[in-house]
């Protein structure tokens, strides 16, 4: 499944623009600095203004790339993009001809998908979910022998909150009320400030909730959303899909990916001077791909900024349980705002959480929620309405979200084993983060900021001029060029930095810290060997 570039002469300026836009991403013959998001913005604006006169559709083929929604064409999502397609082909090659490649397995370090790389689920959570999926067995004597007592108890408790105990029925469109109560209580226990179950919308993962907010906020390309660069490309893709404008603010690599409010201000003012109505600020904390954990003071400045400028604060907090450094702690933006004395009248805040990350890593379940505070009943009605069109999120994911926000407590039968599993995973992640960080820093021309949190490392690679020229000749962006070579030599799949955004002229790639610990030494040595030979070949 290749994402191909639209080639050949096209009839309308729309397609020339689309082609140029795509070449920006694929770096076809343009200079490296053309990855500037400012140029992207310009292209997006130009292409959407000519979208009013699309070419006439081919009468017998209405759904072709010429005639589909141009916003679909414009959006990009590198996490599962080109490099992954190449990896899949290599994987097939390995299967068909074992031993034909210099490695014997592909290691997918492109995506935060812990359980696909051997991480085990939390036993207690799975016990409860299995019992809720098949409640008939709760009446059987044998169940006591197979499941922990507290998982049985929790399953009963949850089932009692579901009308008719029917886990196969559509629920309330915001999610089952009893589960939202549990989540609200969990938020309160975490933050020390109350949460209202009616502010919670359970969704199929955090991503659909982000889409919902973008849909609400964006009416046209005149609506701008401030996003960190580098960012997790759900944001850029979603903004493109909804026809808005991404307003970048740069995180400072020199200061551990620091977020300066002065930078926010600068970008905001520049956007406004161009006639953009900036609606919201996205903050990912802990950061993805950058891994930094914001200091509380920093968060206060951000809250103040949003309040002053009337921006909705979109707080992506899906990595809240992934913190690897003792000097940093997770503080939710809700907690920070409330501790500043700011309530519903002061700030519009949407906080996103997911079951996919943390120590539970239940990506395939598609569970998550957004907690919305500070908006009027009329707006809440609209959000509810949009949620209702899809009826509800999957029930099993809803149950899991409530478990994540209200896990076993001290004294519960499963607490010790739960704790051991959780600590084991988090401590291992912290070790892997450090090992890989050190490994990257030991490579020539590579510097890598510490992963304070989340699941990724985002090393910066200073590519020699010779490599950059070779990339240009191959009509490939330099970072993709490096990543492809890396993949072909080692079987390790990483995502080029241009998929996340980076300061023009700098190159990065994102690598997860998720392969199992026993695989890490081999990865490190393969990476080291590869990099050495790459630099030997391309050193200036």
């Amino acid at each position, binding site marked *: 499944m290749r*994402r191909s570039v639209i080639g050949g002469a096209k009839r309308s300026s729309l397609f020339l623009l689309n082609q140029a836009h795509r070449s920006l991403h694929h770096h076809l013959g343009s200079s490296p600095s053309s990855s500037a998001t400012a140029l992207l913005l310009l292209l997006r604006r130009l292409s959407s203004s000519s979208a*009013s006169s*699309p070419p*006439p*559709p*081919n009468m*017998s*083929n*209405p*759904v072709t790339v010429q005639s*589909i*929604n141009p916003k*679909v*064409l414009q*959006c990009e999502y590198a996490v*599962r993009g080109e490099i992954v397609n190449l990896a899949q082909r290599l994987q097939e090659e390995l299967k068909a001809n074992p031993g034909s490649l210099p490695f014997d397995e592909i290691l997918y370090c492109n*995506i935060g*998908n812990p*359980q*696909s790389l051997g991480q085990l689920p939390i*036993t207690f959570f799975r*016990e409860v979910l*299995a019992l809720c*999926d098949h409640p*008939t*067995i709760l009446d059987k004597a044998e169940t006591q022998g*197979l499941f922990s007592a507290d998982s049985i108890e929790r399953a009963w408790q949850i089932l009692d909150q579901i009308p*008719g105990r*029917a*886990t*196969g*029925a559509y*629920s309330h469109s915001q999610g089952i009320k009893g589960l939202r109560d549990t989540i609200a209580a969990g938020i309160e226990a975490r933050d020390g400030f109350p949460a209202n179950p009616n502010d919670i919308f359970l969704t199929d993962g955090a*991503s*659909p909730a982000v*889409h919902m907010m973008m*849909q*609400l*906020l964006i*009416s046209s390309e005149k609506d701008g959303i401030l996003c960190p660069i580098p960012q997790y490309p759900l944001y850029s893709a979603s903004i493109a899909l909804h026809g808005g404008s991404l307003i970048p603010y740069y995180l400072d690599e020199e200061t551990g990916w620091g977020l300066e409010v002065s930078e926010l201000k600068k970008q905001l003012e520049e956007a406004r001077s161009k006639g953009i109505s900036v609606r919201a600020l996205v903050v990912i904390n802990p950061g993805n791909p950058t891994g930094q954990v914001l200091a509380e003071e920093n968060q206060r400045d951000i809250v103040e900024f949003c309040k002053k*400028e*009337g*921006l909705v604060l979109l707080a992506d907090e899906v990595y809240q349980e992934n913190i690897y450094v003792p000097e940093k702690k997770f503080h939710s933006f809700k907690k920070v705002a409330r501790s500043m004395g700011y309530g519903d009248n002061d700030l*519009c805040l949407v906080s996103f959480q997911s079951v996919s990350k943390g120590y539970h890593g239940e*990506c*395939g*379940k*598609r569970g998550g929620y957004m907690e919305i505070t500070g908006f*009027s009943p009329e707006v809440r009605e*609209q959000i509810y*309405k949009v949620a*209702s*069109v*899809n*009826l*509800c999120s*999957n*029930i*099993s*994911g809803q149950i899991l979200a409530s478990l994540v926000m209200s896990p076993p407590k001290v004294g519960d039968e499963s607490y010790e084993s739960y704790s051991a599993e959780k600590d084991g995973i988090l401590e291992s992640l912290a070790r892997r983060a450090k090992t890989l960080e050190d490994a990257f820093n030991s490579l020539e021309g590579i510097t890598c900021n510490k992963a304070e949190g989340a699941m990724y490392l985002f090393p910066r690679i200073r590519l020699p001029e010779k490599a950059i020229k070779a990339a240009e000749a191959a009509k490939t962006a330099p970072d993709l060029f490096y990543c492809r070579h890396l993949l072909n030599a080692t079987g390790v799949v990483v995502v080029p930095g241009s998929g996340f955004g980076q300061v023009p002229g700098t190159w990065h790639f994102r690598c997860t810290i998720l392969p199992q610990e026993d695989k890490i030494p081999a990865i490190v040595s393969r990476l080291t060997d590869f990099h050495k030979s790459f630099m030997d070949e391309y050193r200036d």
Partner: protein
Amino acid sequence: MAPKGLDYELLNENVKKVQYAVRGELYLRASELQKEGKKIIFTNVGNPHALGQKPLTFPRQVVALCQAPFLLDDPNVGLMFPADAIARAKHYLSLTSGGLGAYSDSRGIPGVRKEVADFLLRRDGYPSDPELIFLTDGASKGVMQILSTIIRGPSDGILVPVPQYPLYSAAISLFGGTLVPYYLEETANWGLDVNDLRNAVSQAKSKGITVKAMVIINPGNPTGQCLSEANLSEILRFCYQEGLVLLGDEVYQQNIYQDERPFISSKKVLMDMGPPYSKEVQLVSFHTVSKGYWGECGQRGGYFEMTNIPSKTVDEIYKVASISLSPNVPAQIFMGLMVNPLKPGDISYEQFIRESKGVLESLRRRARIMTDGFNSCRNVVCNFTEGAMYSFPQIRLPPKAIEAAKSAGKVADVFYCLKLLEATGISTVPGSGFGQKEGVFHLRTTILPAEEDMPAIMESFKKFNDEFMEQYEDHKGYSRM
């Protein structure tokens, strides 16, 4: 105070235009009344398990085992789960890339998509390509994805049946397109006339709208009619001539309550027509685990199959799917189990057949009970529910009732349904939520309340209706619409 980002005035206008009556005014009022302690019978949404239908045992056993794979290692697991469920759980786990907790391929687990393809071959007699089958978090998500790919702006029109399931109107509003209605003819058993389609398209054209796709819901929702092979050929020929992509919502294909018109898929008819149609007409077909006799609404499992869609377009659709990473894995397993069911000889086969038949036969009976029940009421006329899960009776409201509704500031059928709700606790969806001809009123209810409750429900409805008609009629008799 400075305007804030989520002020109502600044919201995306397309969002404000969206209507979705299925969980709209009536449902909200019903929920309020329920909180006050009133007994409510929710017949507003096709949600079988909420009305007492039990899940099929076998799929629940399999998925429970997949959730908790440590069970498979326990020597006592055979005491609690039959061997075929255990084997099937192992089979599906082996198809995943790390169990239920790992993102799958963005199109869905390849092994499950292969099972869907095999099912389609068995059902239709034509091979299917798993690469063109995408699993989704419910069919609704798939519909939204396809519509958002097709609709560029307000000059793109989508032909939608009236009455329709309001996901279509809501999605078209959300994506800023234009809904081009084609009316189903109630007196002809909700049939459609190709001439109406042609007129609709040319009228749209004269308004500067390019119609790009046509939606059919077969069996129909809310109307329940099952399309014949001749109907489908006509429709496909029409799509060929007009260059429309056909969106075939076939989520109720298992719910058929008459024998004259069994389900036949759009794909089969298209392929049977042979070239040029079979090679040219673009078709997207939707299916789900939420309906049929499975009724697993809460799992959010569905798929769409693309036929004759250019590969570059498929790439774009894949790209958008990849942004949401993957559909939920447990539902993918439900889908696999649905399309690859038990066979005679399997340990759980008898039970599975018994449970499935039980549901379907009861639905058939309830379709009849409800249709007959409505037809016995004053000023109510109801087409038979040939398929799906709903009854859509026409309520011939007397002029005085319509006046009363107006004074109360309500649409006439909303007024009637609210009164019905308050009097009987029966929560329906007014026909205006689905679209209907001007001045003709309906309500949609489901045929899902338990069979033993049906007679009482129909009695309760009849009592309310006949009293309502008594109250609002002139003594000359009911007025004709």
